């Protein structure tokens, strides 16, 4: 049981090092103040121990400069920590534009992961090293939490909304993936591995794992099956080509940007935000499409906006 008695988790992403520096800084502050308090107490406790019951210690009312000093020092320190922690957090929250997107669906008690190329995995996530990866995540049931300690990243996976997370692995190998948000009976079994590979190996793995079609292709098939084309291809409903990422005007005068969340809402609750100039005809597809299929539909609509998608069309 002594094998592997680590003191520090693996530092396996670009984010990890920055977080660790701040962690060490905080640890240093902690140790310093703990030492100061402990040593002072020990010193006073010995130096001023009661030697006789009759003893009359001098009474000290307080000392305003001293109070201000020990208000100001912690204040200064926490301001530094706050600024440092916040700027790091902001950097860590924004996926680089070049990040490759992988989709995650949490479900009691497993992780379902889909690569845009169509490879789907369960509880295992293969990613290439040194390439930023962005995860778009949602849950089918309760709140889960996608956590990879070696990457120092973590984000709740919430039903009904998309959350995102990104990382860039710097080390090949296999790292724990945990569900960190209590999600019911087998919460502690909702674990997996993130397997970081050299790009060539990753490509090989990816091509070996293809079982048919890419996410966008699967989405296109669904698009046909659900007969979306009868409206969205005929002018009855708004055209979906080239809309992703663009603002669109709604019937109540406001505008929204067509993103994952808006597309998801429009499939499930079509009447919520209607594009200006179109009647609210669309039926709901709630119950007819799973979270995985929704992500495929979104991938397809997204592909209609990229050059390649247009060419394919």
């Amino acid at each position, binding site marked *: 049981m002594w094998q592997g008695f680590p003191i520090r988790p693996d530092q396996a992403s670009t984010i990890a090092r920055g977080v660790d520096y701040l962690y060490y800084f905080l640890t240093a502050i902690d140790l310093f103040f703990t030492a100061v308090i402990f040593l002072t107490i020990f010193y006073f406790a010995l130096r001023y121990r009661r030697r006789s019951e009759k003893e009359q210690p001098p009474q000290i009312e307080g000392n305003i400069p001293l109070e201000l000093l020990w208000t100001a020092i912690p204040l200064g320190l926490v301001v530094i920590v706050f600024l440092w922690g916040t700027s790091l957090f*902001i*950097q860590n*929250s924004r996926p*680089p534009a*070049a990040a*490759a997107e992988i989709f995650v669906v949490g479900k009691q008690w497993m992780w379902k992961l889909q690569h*845009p*190329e169509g490879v789907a995995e369960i509880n295992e996530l293969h990613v290439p090293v040194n390439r*930023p990866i962005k995860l778009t995540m949602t849950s089918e049931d309760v709140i889960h939490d996608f956590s990879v300690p070696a990457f120092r990243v973590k984000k709740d996976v919430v039903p009904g909304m998309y959350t995102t997370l990104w990382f*860039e692995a710097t080390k090949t190998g296999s790292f724990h993936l945990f569900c960190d948000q209590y999600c019911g009976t087998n919460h502690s079994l909702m674990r997996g591995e993130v397997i970081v590979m050299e790009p060539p190996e990753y490509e090989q793995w990816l091509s070996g794992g293809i079982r048919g079609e890419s996410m966008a292709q699967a989405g296109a098939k669904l698009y046909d099956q659900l007969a979306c084309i009868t409206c969205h291809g005929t002018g009855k409903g708004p055209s979906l080509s080239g809309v992703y990422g663009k603002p669109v005007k709604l019937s109540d005068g406001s505008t929204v940007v067509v993103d994952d969340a808006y597309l998801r809402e429009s499939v499930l609750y079509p009447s919520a935000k209607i594009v200006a100039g179109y009647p609210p005809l669309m039926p709901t597809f709630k119950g007819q499409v799973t979270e995985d299929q929704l992500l495929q539909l979104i991938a397809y609509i997204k592909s209609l906006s990229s050059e390649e998608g247009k060419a394919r069309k």
Partner: protein
Amino acid sequence: MLGHIVPKKTYFLIFGALLALTALTTSMAYVNLGQWNTIVALTIACCKATLVVLFFMHLRWSTRLMRVVLLSALLWLAILISLTTTDFFSRDWTPIPESWETSRLPSPPAQGELRTSRQ
């Protein structure tokens, strides 16, 4: 005698004002004021509540302590509502100003890049 005795006339005056304000707020709802409908309705409600608190509940004649109790309750309510709404209404904002970005590449989205490199 304990407490302040309020003349009956005051009570009836306040009562009249409350009924009038109820009539006013109801009729204002039928006038199209756009965004202002909400503001008018809530302002009138606040006025009515203030009247009730000051006169019917005798806060006008109570000690400062009672006023502090009431105000702190309202302050805490404001904290609850404002900090919660802070979350909900800033969720859709773009995460961060561009300048913060760490590793922006000029190339097209990596999704496409990834796909082309494979095909």
